[in-house]
Every structure is written in structure tokens, then in C-alpha cells.
């Protein structure tokens, strides 16, 4: 399984946010995109999940399927690509259980759903304790757990994560990334976007660096961590 992106261009009201980026991910990889605020990281993920329209000439393929032929809901339900968007976008008026149930809306495999629910509670036991609570009243860390849990149930061939560390205390960040590693080991490919570049590069195998809607560098995460330019721009010297 591979995600192949070539010449991806996205505009908002005629202002170009992505200037034709190329990106490839293989089965089972963890890949991160780092970059400053406004670089185009979230836009890249939204293009893959078909939440924003792309310009002519853009190519996006997943396991040989042309992503451009799929509406957003089918990207999830048919291709198994889930997206934890910026700000998490939980349904705050629904309980934890309802949020997770909704994530299985398009699935018909009862046994599989039950198994995945159990798996989510094994990874995030805290969610089980909060199961009947409205998701809008969860703490930031718990909300992030629920957002990832939801993604795990809705589609998990490829998980797109937009700043999973956002708003979390350092200890929680680390346990969140450990949970993600766990999910990755079970076969889920992960593409994540982070402003916390050090954390992301320690966690991922490969990384891309974005600036002003372009990919300006790519390589093994280890190499990027040692790269003097990256150090200067994103790792605080």
C-alpha cells in the first residue's frame, strides 16, 4: 500500500496554499511533515481526505485508487483513510460512546466493530472510564484520545493526524505518541503533521519540511534532526 502525491496544488479563493508538492508513503511507515504555522501542512492532509478541492494537474493515489474519484466520506469508508483534523472536531454534544459508535456508521461488521472498540479501550483505558460523558466536557488529553480512537474505528489503513500534540502537557504528549506507535505496529500507516518538530522527528521514520506551500527538504528523520538548517529553523538552534 502506498500513498503517492504528485504536483498537488490547492488554492483558497485564488490564493495558492500548495504549489505542487510531491510526497510518497509506503505501507507501515510513520512519516511526518514539519513546518511553521501557515506552511500548508493542514491543507495537505485536507487535500488527501478530500476536504478541500485540488487544482487540475494534481495527482493523488492510494493503493492504486485515484483519490480524486472519491468523495470525503468514501475516502474513509472505502479506502480506510481516516483524518484527525486540526482542533479534533469531536461532536461535543455526543457522549464518548456515541462518538465512537458514529465512527463505525458505515461499517456492517458487528464483530469487527466490537473488537476495534475493545482495542481502543485497551490503548486508551481512560476513554472507557469516561464512556458516558459528553465529549465536549473531556480534558484536552482525553479529547485527543477520543479523536484518535474515532479515527482507528472509522478507517485505519492510513491515519492522517493534524498536530496530535497540540495543547497537551509534555507527559501526555509522550504517552500519546506511544499510543500512536502501538497503533502503527498493528498495521496502520501514519502521516502526521506537527509544529513540535523535535517530537515528530523522534517518532517518525521519515520527514518532510514545508515552507510557504512547498516541500523544501525531505529525508530520514534522524538525518533531519541532525541537519543544521533544520536545527536552526525548527529545533531552536
Amino acid at each position, binding site marked *: 500500500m502506498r500513498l503517492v502525491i504528485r504536483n498537488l496544488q490547492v488554492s483558497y479563493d485564488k490564493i495558492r496554499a500548495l504549489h505542487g508538492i510531491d510526497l510518497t508513503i509506503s505501507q507501515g511507515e510513520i512519516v511526518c511533515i514539519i513546518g511553521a504555522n501557515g506552511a500548508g501542512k493542514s491543507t495537505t492532509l485536507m487535500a488527501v*481526505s478530500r*476536504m478541500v478541492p485540488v487544482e487540475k494537474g494534481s495527482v493523488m493515489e492510494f493503493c492504486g485508487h485515484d483519490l480524486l474519484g472519491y*468523495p*470525503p*466520506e*468514501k475516502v*474513509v*469508508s472505502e479506502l480506510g483513510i*481516516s*483524518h484527525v*483534523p486540526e482542533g479534533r*472536531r469531536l*461532536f*461535543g*454534544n*455526543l457522549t464518548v460512546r*456515541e462518538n465512537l*459508535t*458514529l*465512527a463505525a*456508521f*458505515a*461499517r456492517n461488521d458487528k464483530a469487527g466493530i466490537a473488537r476495534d472498540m475493545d482495542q481502543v479501550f485497551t490503548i486508551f483505558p481512560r476513554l472507557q472510564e469516561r464512556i458516558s460523558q459528553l465529549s*465536549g466536557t473531556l480534558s484536552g488529553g482525553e479529547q485527543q484520545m477520543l479523536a484518535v480512537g*474515532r479515527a482507528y474505528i*472509522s*478507517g485505519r489503513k492510513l491515519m492522517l493526524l493534524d498536530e496530535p500534540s497540540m495543547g497537551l502537557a509534555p507527559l501526555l504528549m509522550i504517552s500519546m505518541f506511544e499510543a500512536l506507535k502501538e497503533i502503527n505496529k498493528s498495521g496502520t500507516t501514519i502521516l502526521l503533521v506537527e509544529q513540535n518538530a523535535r517530537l515528530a522527528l523522534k517518532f517518525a521514520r521519515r520527514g518532510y519540511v514545508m515552507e510557504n506551500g512547498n516541500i523544501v527538504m525531505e529525508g530520514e528523520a534522524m538525518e533531519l534532526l541532525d541537519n543544521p538548517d533544520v536545527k536552526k529553523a525548527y529545533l531552536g538552534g
Partner: protein
Amino acid sequence: MQLFLQNMVNAMQWGSFYALIALGYSMVYSILMLFNFAHGDIFMVGSYIGFGVATALLGLTVAFNFPLPGWVILVFTIILSMFLTSFVGMFIERVGYRPLRDAPRASAAITGLMIGIILETGNLALLGAERLSFPPLIDTVIFTVGGVHLTNKKILIVGVSLAMMYALHVFIQKSKWGMAMRAMSYDFQAVPLMGISINKIAPLTFAIGSGLAAGAGILYSLAYPVLDPYMGVLLGWKAFVAAILGGRGSILGAALAGFVLGFIEIFSVWIFPSTFRDVIAYSIILLILTIRPHGFFGQAHSTQLRL
């Protein structure tokens, strides 16, 4: 006291009509941020469909010489008409509103008004200006309890309405479709990320709202068996007032406000001359809205308020 209870009974009946229709406005608003101004006319269409179904069923029982009791025909009329009218709602969503989903809300609102006019005048063109009278499926039976007059029809109207509202409540709270509707009312853009198509939830919502309007139409026709193409206009506007009074997008609020509207109207007539009914009643509602501009259960979260 007797007079008070008598008025209560009548208020409950009118409240049932308003509440059932108001629910349709509220449900559509809560998921699409759109007031479906054709909804009063869907009530009208539902009544006519009810008329057609009832007449056809009566005709069939005569043709096959198989007389059925009136209440059996009534039950089938209600179920079949709700079912058929739900398709009218889905059709309106598909051709009228879906193409305008990203358009300014004002365009979508006038679309509703235009659809309403088309339904009214289309009906006029098709069936003529003559008023139809709804077949009397059941005889009126009057009970007197402690000096208060009840009729079997009033009990039926209020009972069936409450049952429909309860069924809707259970559906919205317990089924996964209801869950998706609630999710959509909170953040409709995030719904596709769960693998759920908005193009399934929106028609479903129109279908349910229209079905309830048809139910209201038949119950209304039991009490006031005269059908005309403009019967949904005033009633529709009043139900819309109830939907606003309940709090935009609040299902519970719409039902409650429907009954409140019924009470205010009936009790205005108790005190003032009946010609002043709506003047008094709607002045009171204006006053309530001045004090509570968001209605009874106006939502504070409204992250995506567009109208």
C-alpha cells in the same frame, strides 16, 4: 375551572398541530442551518395526499365489497400518507436545496418560498380552486368528564401527536441515524470524516420532517375537514414562529413551543374577543422573544451560525 380545563383541551389540540409542524422546521434548521420555508406547504401537500389515500381506500372497500371500519382506514391513511409525503420532502431537498448547499443562506431561503408558491399554485392548477372536504372516516363521539367536553377526535389528535413526538425522540437519541443527525447539528463539516455522507442525512431529515407534517395534516383534517391549497400558509408561519420560540434548531424546544403557542392562542380567545386572537397572541410572543431572543432553548454553542 371547568372553562379552564375546556380551554386546556382545545389548546392541546392546536398545540399538537403547531408542534408537529414546528419539528420539521427545527430538524432541518439544526442540520443544514436552513429554514425550509416550503414546510407549511408540505403540510398542505400531506393533507391532500391524505385525502387521496383515504378516498382511494374507501373506494377500494366499496369496489371489493369489503367494508373496513373507519378507524382501520384512518390508520392506513396516516401511515401511507406520511410515507408518501416523506418522498415529497426528499425530492424538494434534492432539487431545491442540495444545489444551493454552499450558496448564501438568503438564496436558499427564497428557494423555499418559491417552492412553496409552486406547490400552492401547482395544486390550484391541478385540482382547481374548489375546496375539497376530507372524508369523515370516524364519527365524533363526545364524552363529558366533570363538565369538560372531550371528543374521541381530540383525544386521538393529541395522543397520536404525542406518540409521534416520542417516537422521534427515541429515534434521535438511540438510533445511529439520529446520532448522525445530532452530530451534524454540532459540526456538519466533520460528519464526512466519519465516513458518513451528508447526502444521506439531509434527505432523511427532510423525509422525517415531511412525514410529521403529513401526520399533522391528516389529524388537522379530522378536526377541520376542509382542504384548500393555501391551508398551509398561516399554519406554517405559526409553526415557524414556534420553531423560533423553541430556540433555533432545538427539537424539544419546537415541540414545547408548539404547545405554548396553542395555549396562548386559546387563552387569548378566552379573555378577549376572538377576532383579536392572533393580534393578542402574537404580541405576547413578540414580548417573549424580546426578553429571550434565543427562544426557550437557543443553543449557545452554534459554532456555525450562518443566518
